[in-house]
């Protein structure tokens, strides 16, 4: 008979299988399912369209951030092109949906695969370049993709952008914030689960080995270049999927959002969330998205109340300043990120009231 296990006070595992489980205890698993249940039950009933929009943005961003964390946090290849890959996904979906009439259900994964291909092409320099040299090569990728999106007018309509048809899933129309909420979050859960699985099998182990010591990894029979490319591919696949969903959700795509700033924001997310930590990527994505919205809301109030209007202050710089400050403070005070804070909180709660 299967025994329910709550928190262990020692190592009582009697089978290797238990060591392969994601959760140490059934309690953890239970809590997760309850959490997911609550999310799906509560969010649709409680939210205003605006909060739903924020929640959905968090979901989409999280998918892309998980992808970046696989590349940066696990494989150790710092990429400054993730924003552009997100854009490639968005444009791929938009072009497939408009010029080829591809349905939503196929367009999204197809966009993911196309982005994965693009990501692998821009990952080729990783075969030769190490560390920061590679980072700059991905920065080049960012600019090249941006340029292509704007100037390949026959395909991307240049600065005019593309308007997408309505998404429909097996005949059901996906409409409005609530419709997308279900799609986005079911997808997020699936993508998170897949990422966790990849990371606990030989692929994840190989990625980490390449990050920590590529020579030793090679000595373990891991073909470094192929795995770096694979990591670029998986990472861009996530970005592509997220971008595609985003395109459908936003109804139209233009080139502006996919700039270097977006790439930097993604890096900020995974650092603030915790490098090499999948739940951390979600936490970081949530944090940055909420921070952006909070700053927008705050500057909105300032402008409406005309408090500083006399001083001729522009609010965009203030937002930029606070954004920078948050990153700086985070790195100075908790470089291991939100995931670490969460871990500390949890472990002090788990043993409560008998901590220590």
């Amino acid at each position, binding site marked *: 008979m299967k025994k329910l296990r709550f928190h262990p006070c020692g190592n009582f595992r009697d089978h*290797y*299988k238990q*060591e*392969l489980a994601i959760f140490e205890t059934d309690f953890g698993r239970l809590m997760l399912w309850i959490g997911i249940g609550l999310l799906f039950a509560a969010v649709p009933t409680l939210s205003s369209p605006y909060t739903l929009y924020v929640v959905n943005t968090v979901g989409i961003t999280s998918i892309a951030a998980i992808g970046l964390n696989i590349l940066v946090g696990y494989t150790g290849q710092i990429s400054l092109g993730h924003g552009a890959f997100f854009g490639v996904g968005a444009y791929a979906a938009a072009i497939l949906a408009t010029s080829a009439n591809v349905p939503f259900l196929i367009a999204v994964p197809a966009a993911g695969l196309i982005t994965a291909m693009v990501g692998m092409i821009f990952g080729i320099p990783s075969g030769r370049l190490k560390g920061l040299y590679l980072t700059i090569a991905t920065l080049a990728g960012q600019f090249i993709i941006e340029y292509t999106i704007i100037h390949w007018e026959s395909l991307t309509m240049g600065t005019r952008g593309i308007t997408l048809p309505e998404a429909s899933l097996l005949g059901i129309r996906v409409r409005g914030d609530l419709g997308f909420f279900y799609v986005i979050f079911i997808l997020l859960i699936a993508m998170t689960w*897949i990422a966790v*699985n*990849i990371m*606990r*099998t*030989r*692929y994840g*182990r*190989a990625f*980490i*080995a390449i990050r*920590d*010591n590529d*020579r*030793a*990894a*090679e*000595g*373990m*029979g*891991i*073909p*470094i270049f192929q795995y770096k490319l*694979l990591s670029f591919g998986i990472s861009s696949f996530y970005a592509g999927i997220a971008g595609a969903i985003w395109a459908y959700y936003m109804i139209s795509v233009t080139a502006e959002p996919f700039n270097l700033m977006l790439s930097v924001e993604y890096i900020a997310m995974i650092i603030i969330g915790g490098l090499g930590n999948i739940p951390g990527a979600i936490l970081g994505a949530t944090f940055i998205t909420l921070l952006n919205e909070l700053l927008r809301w705050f500057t909105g109030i300032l402008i409406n109340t005309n408090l500083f209007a006399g001083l001729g202050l522009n609010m965009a710089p203030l937002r930029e300043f606070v954004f920078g400050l948050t990153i700086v403070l985070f790195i100075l005070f908790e470089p291991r990120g939100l995931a670490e804070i969460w871990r500390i909180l949890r472990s002090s709660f788990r043993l409560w009231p008998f901590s220590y």
Partner: protein
Amino acid sequence: MKSLRGQPSIFAGRKPGEVRADLDARNLTLRFGGVTALDGVDLQVRTGELLAVIGPNGAGKTSLLNCITGYYKAQQGAVAFNGVDITNRTTHELVRVGIGRTFQNIELFPGMTVLSNMLLARHTHCSYGLGAASLFLGAVREEEIRHRRVLEELIDFLEMQAIRKKTVGSLPYGMMKRVELGRALALEPKLLVLDEPFAGMNLEEKEDMVRFLLEMNGAWGQTMILVEHDMSIVMSIAQRVVVLNFGEKLAEGTPEQVRSEPEVIKAYLGDTETVL
């Protein structure tokens, strides 16, 4: 020699054909940074042999190992393993062919546990693909468990039970060397290349290590190349010794032959055990 501990099944189950490890390196020449590290070196290893390579620092011992294991590409010369030409193969391909190694300056993953370090070495023995892995199918789980069993046998053999869950970075130096040996064994190599496995060890740790090597060589017929400076170890366990000096082969033969070679004494051993 009789086996005293359980023999890991990956080695016990080997058929005679699977242990074959005949290495034939001819005329290896390697230059870099204006230095000739290897100058036309020949090296033969026969199945079941424990061959030691000795020589002064900078004589090209590690360069030789690096050429055999694919880390360096020799400018001239050829290497054949079991009759197959492997001259320009990359390191990871050579691991699949059956050449595993340890490193002079420990190249473990210090942030990982001993188990995770060893699990990495099972990479080439995993058969599942990316699709199965991403869904963590039952077959994947079973395979992972099988690898875990293999590792437990190795841990048992190397007497590392107490440290299997410890982070490698927190272990003493001598233990790290042992973990590195364990990791190399987890590759299931036909030819095991050991670069100074005894460096920095005290007598006790050296004796343990010698026991493991002798048992691997004696009971499983594991073929090994060993680079080492501790002459008392080399002379008592190696079956054949190759001496390198300035990138060239100075002498080759049984330990007794090599030890009495005047050239070797002059270039490498010195004449007495005392300092002054």
